[in-house]
């Protein structure tokens, strides 16, 4: 838990639990504080409870236990339409029987805003998402990306301080999605709004967020900024869920301060950083990122342990080379190397020794 966020927290989940059937908990003891102006992403596989959390925040689901606070006020019993939270839905939920301008005017209308003020705000919101010329269109006449912009504009037009987004880019193709990620982040930063963003796409989470909450099994597995999440996963779930990851199974044989020696199942010994292993004798899952594996002996520290490896497959991917190796009896050990002029291309069947800096290799729970 990030301590800095908790005192000035704008949104707070306090020991929140949620069960639909009275038998299993979908959300187990959720504690989360989101600072004002923060872009927080809830990331996790489907069924991990992230969307339920979002719906509880929006008011469409009630918490079974615990308190949800917005701006210091408990909102558990406030109906959704009085919470003043903007929301972007997965399928945009643009009202098909209204034009784009009418869609945007809707939240202003129900707030009894005058017509001139309404028109002015709608125009500003449309300009903000560069859709100024589309006010008269119907949602069905727009492409997916354009609908996405309108949905965003509609969630922002009534100047909500908190905007929730439920997998808003899920229906777009890859290139458009990447572009929209950038744009959403840009607008959120400019307006200084707080965004809670739900996705199961880790790239999206990493590129957009200030902090990412990784959900699994109804619990937050790790809450951290993207770089920390990627480079220092706290448990094996996070390590495997975020980015590509090589895993090796072994047993801790020696603890030495911030270093732990792990004997792999085939008897070879490596150096690791102990993250959540308790002591000698523990089973552990060792995690190492493919791009941190090194097979040039010169670039490794002198005392680093090395492992024997055999090249199984070499894949040319443009910007990188991706090489599959057999290491410690496993056939799915991946090494990624940058496509640089001095980079060597490995050939299948080649035998070599690989290694890494001990701090890149994390011994996690098995």
């Amino acid at each position, binding site marked *: 838990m990030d301590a800095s966020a908790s005192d000035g927290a704008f949104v707070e989940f306090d020991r929140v639990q949620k069960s639909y059937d009275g038998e299993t908990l979908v959300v187990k003891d959720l504690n989360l504080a989101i600072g004002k102006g923060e872009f927080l992403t809830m990331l996790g596989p489907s069924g991990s409870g992230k969307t339920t959390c979002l719906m509880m925040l*929006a*008011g*469409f689901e009630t918490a079974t236990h615990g308190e949800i606070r917005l701006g210091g006020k408990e909102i558990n019993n406030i*109906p*959704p*339409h*009085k*919470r*003043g*939270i*903007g*929301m972007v*839905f*997965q*399928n945009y*939920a643009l*009202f*098909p*029987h209204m034009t784009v301008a009418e869609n945007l005017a*809707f*939240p202003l209308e*129900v*707030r009894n805003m005058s017509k001139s003020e309404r028109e002015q705000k709608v125009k500003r919101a449309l300009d903000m998402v*560069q859709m100024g*010329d*589309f006010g008269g*269109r119907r949602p*069905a*006449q*727009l*492409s997916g*990306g*354009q609908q996405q912009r309108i949905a965003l504009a*509609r*969630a922002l037009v*009534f100047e909500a301080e908190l905007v*929730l987004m439920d997998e808003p880019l899920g229906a777009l193709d890859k*290139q*458009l999605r990447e*572009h*929209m990620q*950038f*744009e959403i982040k840009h607008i959120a930063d400019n307006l200084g709004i707080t965004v809670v963003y739900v996705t199961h796409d880790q790239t999206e989470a990493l590129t957009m967020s200030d902090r990412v909450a990784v959900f699994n099994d109804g619990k937050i597995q790790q809450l951290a900024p993207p770089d920390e999440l990627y480079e220092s996963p706290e448990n094996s779930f996070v390590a495997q869920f975020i980015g590509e990851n090589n895993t090796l199974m072994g047993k801790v044989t020696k603890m030495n301060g911030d270093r732990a020696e792990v004997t792999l199942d085939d008897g070879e010994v490596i150096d690791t950083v102990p993250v959540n292993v308790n002591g000698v004798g523990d089973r552990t899952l060792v995690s190492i990122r493919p791009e941190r594996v090194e097979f040039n002996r010169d670039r490794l520290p002198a005392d680093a342990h090395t492992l024997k490896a055999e090249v199984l497959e070499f894949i040319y991917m443009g910007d990188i080379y991706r090489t599959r190796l057999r290491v410690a009896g496993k056939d799915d050990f991946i090494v990624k190397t940058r496509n640089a002029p001095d980079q060597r291309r490995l050939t299948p069947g080649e035998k070599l020794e690989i290694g890494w800096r001990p701090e890149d290799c994390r011994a996690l729970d098995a």
Partner: protein
Amino acid sequence: MSKLSSTGEQTADAPTPEDAFHESATLEGRDKEPPHGSGEGGPVLAADGTPLKRSLQRALRREKLRALGLIAPLLIFVLVTFIAPIADMLFRSVENQIVSDTLPETTATLQSWDSAGDDLPPEAVFEALYYDLFLASEAKRHTRLGTRLNYEETGLSSLFRSTGRSLDDYGELFQDVLEDHDEIWESAGFWYEMMGTTGDEPGQPELIEAQRDRLEALTGERQTGEIGFVPAAAIGEVLPRTADAYAAFAAYAALEDGDTVAEEEPWEAVFAALASDLRRDGAAEAIAGYDGDGAEELQAALEQAVPEFPETTYREFFLEEDEDWGSLDAWGTIQAYSPSFTPGYFLNAVDLELTADGVSAKPEGQQIYVLLFQRTLFMSLVIMGSCVLLGYPVAYLLSNLPMRVSNLLMILVLLPFWTSLLVRTSAWKVLLQQQGVINDILVWLGLVADDARLVMINNQFGTIVAMTHILLPFMILPLYSVMKTIPPSYVRAAKSLGATPWTSFWRVYFPQSIPGIGAGCILVFILAIGYYITPELVGGTTGTFISNRIAYHISSSLNWGLAAALGTILLAVVLILYWVYDKIVGIDNVSLG
């Protein structure tokens, strides 16, 4: 697709400084490049040089034939059992050939009569009527004509029936005189030889063929049998009326009765015709110049029998038989309904009638159809309205409950479908009657006095209640199927935007459910407007529909023409309402799920 592509292109054209945005727009517009080969102008050619359109057609032809083959059985079935009967009924609503088929000569001679004047039709019309009616009564078709004309003028049915019985009397007046003078007139063979050709005498086969055609029109059956009689040309010139009458007799005897013409004594009408011919001006000269078969007997008859013939005319005979033949109205009706096609049924169906003076309103007491049409429309609208009011909340609940519960509820909704219509309607009788369950409960609760029990059945109220219940599933199902497709995220979005639950429903949910309402309304209204069984059972006198009247005319009064006209009007009303609905709501907005 075209709309989408146009947005993509417009986006690309719009001046957007943002490079990134421009890039995304072109991304979307990327796949709209013109297809290969269409840029040069002229038809697009396939690889083998034939126009692409034609080779595409050829490729699709097999599939089209296959599709046609698949629907052919149903298509034929529908054509034979549905379209054809409807076309037949539509035809019956204007068809009126029975008058001119039964009384061809009468209607022809009656044409020149002035129905607006004070005079009865001339003697020629009565003469024609005698022979037309004689043949018709032999074929027992005159009563049908009487029934038909009775729809228009009451009393004509009995007039035709009673007159038909005594037509022989007139002919017998002359037959007796002739036979008293010479027994040869009783001889069938003598008549046959006199009227027919023998050897190489010139004949008049067209005369007998005309009678064959007439008999076909009269009986409605094809007459292909052998008549065995060819009228002689010579006698036809001397005795034209007799030749006609004998040909009619011969054709009927041979074709309908299956007798040999030469062995049958002619009808009384033939004697009446002979009398007419003998007394005609110039008959004496004609017979003097005639030397064929029976010339002597005719000469003798002319000299001896004719002076003894009773002095009477066709007209006198008819007026003596029934004084109604002197009624100008009766003759006016016959004349007005002489043409083969008539607007009469349609006029009747809207409480008008075709009289000798043209179209006029029916007498006050006989006007029922306009009222019935209005009532049918009004009650159908009320039933449709109550179905919407009752069905909408149920459909809403069904589409928003979890699957398990909604399936159970759906079974309850469909239950009426699986129960016999008669059972349901009878159940309403049990519930609503004055000694029924509801009245008993109201009396027991003290809300209604025992001697003032509510009348809830055999009136409009009962019909509306029972039919609303029966037609409710037809409203709920289309509503449900539309509501099922409205994602809950719309209402959620509206709420998240600050709308109260009511506003969210009214502004966002309800407009999207309108296609379902439209479909349900059309379905219920069209079913209600033609409903028959329920109004018949629980409608009493004030709750019956136009369809009950149509059924009455089909099965009881047998006035199929009027029933067809009423049905045609009903069909037209439905089509017009459908058209109006399309103009107002737009038929594209209707979803049947």
